[in-house]
């Protein structure tokens, strides 16, 4: 479509069920009570001039441009701040109003540069539009003092701030307050001296608390805050709605284009996951898509000590297929396997697992969910009957108590965190929700502007189950359990058994305090609040799953929700915050070695037959190898070939030395990726991948929402990723002939009951659909378990606390926990290749002042981080965000390789690695470790590409 800005109704939508009818410019309109006159007019297609109003923030009434006349009212009220009333008669265009508006505009323009022709917002500027709309032809004032000629702030890598063009409408400040919830921006000075400030007068945008979400840029009606890319290339000429490829929130964006050039990504107001908001990654950090380090030609080499040799696609597929066949013939079919990517589309993921099951002839397929949310799959399936999160994101609007455990939403899931914060602050006279945070660190959400957790339980890493069992102890022994709910929805005998267990004195908060280090009274108060505070919703992340008792913790969470009746309606539930954009989808698509699409076990003959008949093959009924098992088998010399799509296991998986030993033992490692990632150091075949901007397909976010990904430019590597997998399958002899990803989705829908009603046509029509999408729920299922649990009766599972085998001791006295930060994403392959490095150029080690002093460490010092698995060096930052005895770092940078120190202890049920607990020691250091030096040399050696001999 040609470029159209998104509709702006001027003020937010009213949620009232009551309606009001009125007349605007002689036309009748009916809107929900509480709607502003401005919005009512906009909904009937009447545009009232405005500058300070936009529908993402509350009305402000400062610009005086939206004045209207209302019968029976004195004067000319502002339409943005005047709510509709029954029978109201409104006129938006009269000679009197025209005169007033022209006067207002004249004043604005008298202090605004008249450089429209050379302005970056030319053609996309509300001030320019309104000057035209009110018919301003002349400025009579001979202004002596103006705001023109002020210095621009170019500090933010993605947008500029030009105070000379500011009309002081405060839209940016209100967007920062109301939409993002950071409250970084403010108005400095008063009256004529008013000026937008990024924080303190000394702050520029980069150094301030601004998180670069882009809400202010989006809200700005002029070119005061404008994307650098627009300044560079001009305004867009068309737009395509698509889905972000970063985290599991799954924001919908408009990719705004000039030809095949992406100008900007703008959050889409109708996106049901993000509701028009964005974060620094999705909004701005897409430069990696055209980064010079992207590999665009297939490459092969006999040995990892050889340089790479570029080849054409045909040769690459023929060679890959011949290697896979050779290895299968020599070592047996079980020597092959593959890893699907949580960053690729559902359709691509489905094809990779199909290639492995139907082409390789085994079930050795796994996905990166192994190392993040596999315990969610196990835990929720056991207790509720399906591994799905129970709510949609909108549900948080009806929550009274938010319990966050092992998640850091403001960094990991920032757009949803903004919605959470909005609910925590309260709105329009409605008090905010209460907040409980269970986390070893004082994460930002514990205390931030206008938000303070009622209870922060800073537990010792590794004691989640003990803390949750202690909370259950309080709920049961103090009679706070919702027995009516339990009797109706759950197995009462199992509940009784569980209740008897948690009631034991050994599970009291007081008894467990020495283990968890959580104050017993504080824990009791938190448990009472969750059980009695109204709608209670639990949000959790990898701080729950990445433990030796990850699955037990998920089940303990499910127990708590069932015991308090917090399941099956809006405002409550158990909500896993998924890490990557399509980790939910990758799991749904049958990426795990023990189950086919839709979470059906491979040993189930009926399900297998369904697939066998459709695919025309016989499937192995035995589960295949999980990623860590593949690496063990490789070290044992029996696993020889790996097809790895869009995952960098060498950097992301634990105990790097073990991963590299496994990879080095294989004869054919195929990396299918955008860049020569760390895993590619051990690869023999490199198949270049395409970005989310270059292909069609779907992603499924953390709320089970299946959303379209739309191609906005031609793949620079020549093929979409599903085409690469299909060509490889064809080279292996499989008769695949998909012509479009919609045909793959049709196959998924045909074979997967929960996707039965999904098709590209339905998705285009609805925008998105939350599975299950079935005959009973053709429009999808925002909330799960509404009339009963998927498994029938909810199952209470006794979760006894079992301490991890990873112990601190004299040699390794501190506990390391790892995580991520806002500006970087996962292993950093994408974000390190964007300007986001301005915020986080290196991984830092957070250490408590007491531990730092004991070791003579100051902020900025190089320190050695050593565990039983390995050692690395990085710089320290001394902070009391971490408790004494706990240190923390991120794993975004390949130079640090935090996973050199993590161990191969893992979750008992799923082998999800225990990233969150490693016993370590910190000591002063003056340089990189031997590992880091050797690894750097290996990387340089391994990334050589043979240069062709020039033709004569």
């Amino acid at each position, binding site marked *: 479509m040609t470029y159209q800005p998104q509709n702006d109704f001027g003020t937010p939508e009213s949620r009232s069920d009551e309606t009001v009818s009125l007349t605007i410019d002689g036309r009748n309109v009916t809107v929900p009570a509480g709607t502003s006159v401005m919005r009512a007019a906009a909904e009937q297609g009447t545009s009232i001039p405005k500058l300070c109003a936009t529908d993402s923030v509350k009305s402000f009434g400062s610009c005086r441009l939206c004045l209207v006349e209302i019968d029976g009212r004195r004067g000319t009220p502002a339409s943005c701040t005047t709510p509709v009333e029954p029978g109201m008669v409104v006129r938006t265009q009269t000679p009197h109003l025209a005169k007033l508006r022209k006067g207002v505009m004249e004043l604005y323009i008298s202090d605004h540069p008249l450089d429209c022709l050379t302005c970056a917002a030319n053609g996309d500027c509300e001030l320019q539009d309104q000057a035209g709309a009110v018919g301003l032809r002349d400025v009579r004032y001979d202004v002596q003092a103006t705001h023109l000629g002020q210095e621009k702030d170019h500090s933010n890598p993605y947008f500029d701030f030009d105070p000379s063009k500011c009309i002081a409408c405060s839209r940016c400040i209100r967007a920062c307050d109301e939409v993002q919830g950071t409250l970084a921006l403010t108005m400095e000075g008063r009256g004529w001296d008013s000026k937008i400030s990024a924080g303190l007068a000394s702050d520029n945008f980069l150094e301030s608390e601004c998180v670069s979400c882009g809400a202010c840029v989006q809200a700005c009606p002029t070119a005061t805050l404008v994307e650098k890319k627009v300044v560079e290339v001009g305004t867009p000429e068309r737009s395509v709605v698509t889905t972000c490829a970063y985290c599991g929130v799954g924001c919908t964006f408009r990719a705004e284009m000039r030809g095949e050039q992406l100008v900007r990504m703008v959050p889409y107001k109708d996106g049901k996951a993000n509701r028009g908001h964005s974060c620094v990654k999705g909004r701005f950090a897409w430069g990696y898509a055209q980064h010079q380090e992207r590999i665009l030609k297939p490459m092969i080499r006999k040995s990892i000590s050889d340089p790479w040799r570029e080849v054409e696609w045909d040769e690459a597929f023929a060679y890959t297929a011949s290697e896979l066949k050779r290895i299968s013939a020599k070592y047996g079919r079980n020597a092959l396997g593959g890893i699907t990517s949580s960053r690729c589309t559902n359709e691509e993921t489905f094809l990779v697992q199909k290639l492995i099951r139907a082409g390789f002839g085994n079930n050795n397929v796994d996905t990166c969910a192994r190392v993040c949310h596999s315990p969610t799959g196990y835990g929720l399936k056991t207790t509720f009957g399906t591994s799905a999160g129970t709510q949609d994101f909108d549900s948080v609007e009806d929550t009274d108590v938010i319990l966050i455990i092992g998640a850091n939403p403001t960094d990991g899931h920032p757009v949803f965190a903004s919605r959470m914060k909005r609910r925590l602050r309260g709105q329009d006279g409605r008090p905010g929700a209460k907040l409980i945070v269970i986390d070893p660190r004082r994460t930002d959400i514990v205390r931030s502007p206008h938000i303070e957790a009622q209870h922060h339980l800073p537990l010792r890493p590794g004691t989640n189950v003990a803390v949750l069992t202690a909370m259950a102890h309080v709920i049961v022994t103090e009679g706070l359990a919702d027995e009516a709910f339990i009797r109706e929805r759950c197995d009462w005998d199992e509940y009784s058994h569980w209740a008897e267990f948690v009631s034991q004195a050994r599970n009291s908060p007081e008894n467990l305090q020495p283990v968890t280090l959580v104050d017993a009274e504080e824990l009791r108060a938190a448990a009472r609040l969750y059980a009695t505070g109204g709608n209670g919703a639990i949000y959790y992340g990898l701080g729950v799953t990445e433990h030796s008792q990850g699955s037990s913790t998920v089940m303990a969470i499910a127990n708590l929700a069932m015991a308090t009746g917090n399941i099956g309606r809006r405002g409550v539930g158990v909500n896993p915050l998924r890490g990557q954009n399509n980790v939910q989808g990758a799991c749904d698509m049958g990426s795990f070695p023990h189950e086919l699409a839709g979470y059906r076990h491979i*040993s189930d003959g009926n399900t297998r037959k369904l697939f066998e008949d459709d695919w025309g093959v016989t499937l192995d009924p*035995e589960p295949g190898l999980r990623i860590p098992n593949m690496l063990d088998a490789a070290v044992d010399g029996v696993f020889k070939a790996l097809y790895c799509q869009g995952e960098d296991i060498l950097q992301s998986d634990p105990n790097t030395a073990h991963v590299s030993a496994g990879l080095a033992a294989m004869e054919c490692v195929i990396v299918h990726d955008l860049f020569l990632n760390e895993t590619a150091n051990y690869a023999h075949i490199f198949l270049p991948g395409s970005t989310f901007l270059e292909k069609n397909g779907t992603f499924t976010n953390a709320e089970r929402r299946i959303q379209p990904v739309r191609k906005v430019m031609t793949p620079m590597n020549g093929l979409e990723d599903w085409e690469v997998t299909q060509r490889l399958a064809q080279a292996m002899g499989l008769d695949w002939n998909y012509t479009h990803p919609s045909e793959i989705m049709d196959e998924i829908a045909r074979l997967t009951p929960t996707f039965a009603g999904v098709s590209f046509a339905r998705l285009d029509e609805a925008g998105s659909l939350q599975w299950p999408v079935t005959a009973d729920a053709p429009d999808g299922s925002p909330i799960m378990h509404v009339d009963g649990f998927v498994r029938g009766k909810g199952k209470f599972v006794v979760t006894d606390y079992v301490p991890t085998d990873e112990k601190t001791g004299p040699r390794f006295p501190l506990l390391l926990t790892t995580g991520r930060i806002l500006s970087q994403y996962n292993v950093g392959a994408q974000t390190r290749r964007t300007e986001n490095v301005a915020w986080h150029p290196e991984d830092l080690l957070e250490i408590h002042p007491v531990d730092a002093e004991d070791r003579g460490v100051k902020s900025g010092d190089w320190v050695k981080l050593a565990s039983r698995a390995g050692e690395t060096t990085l710089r320290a930052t001394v902070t009391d965000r971490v408790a004494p005895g706990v240190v923390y770092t991120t794993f975004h940078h390949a130079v640090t390789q935090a996973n050199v120190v993590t161990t191969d202890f893992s979750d*008992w049920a799923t082998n999800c690695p225990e990233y969150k607990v490693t016993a370590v020691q910190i000591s002063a250091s003056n340089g990189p470790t031997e590992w880091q030096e050797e690894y750097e040399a290996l990387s340089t050696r391994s990334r050589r590409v043979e240069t062709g001999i020039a033709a004569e």
Partner: protein
Amino acid sequence: MNSVERLVHMANQIATNLATDAAPVAAVADHIQQFWDPRMKKMIFAHGTAGLSPIAAAAISLLADAQNGA
């Protein structure tokens, strides 16, 4: 840890966490049956019960017997 040691560790870990189940031995056996690939199962059968906790050992014996009987 080599691969066999790791399997013994995993089996013990499963047994510890399922010890509170109403039928722990069957639960452990079922878990291993559902999630371990055939080679892993073969390796632990060949290894025997050394180093295994009583529940894990009983579960492995149960699985091995079922396999042999089949």
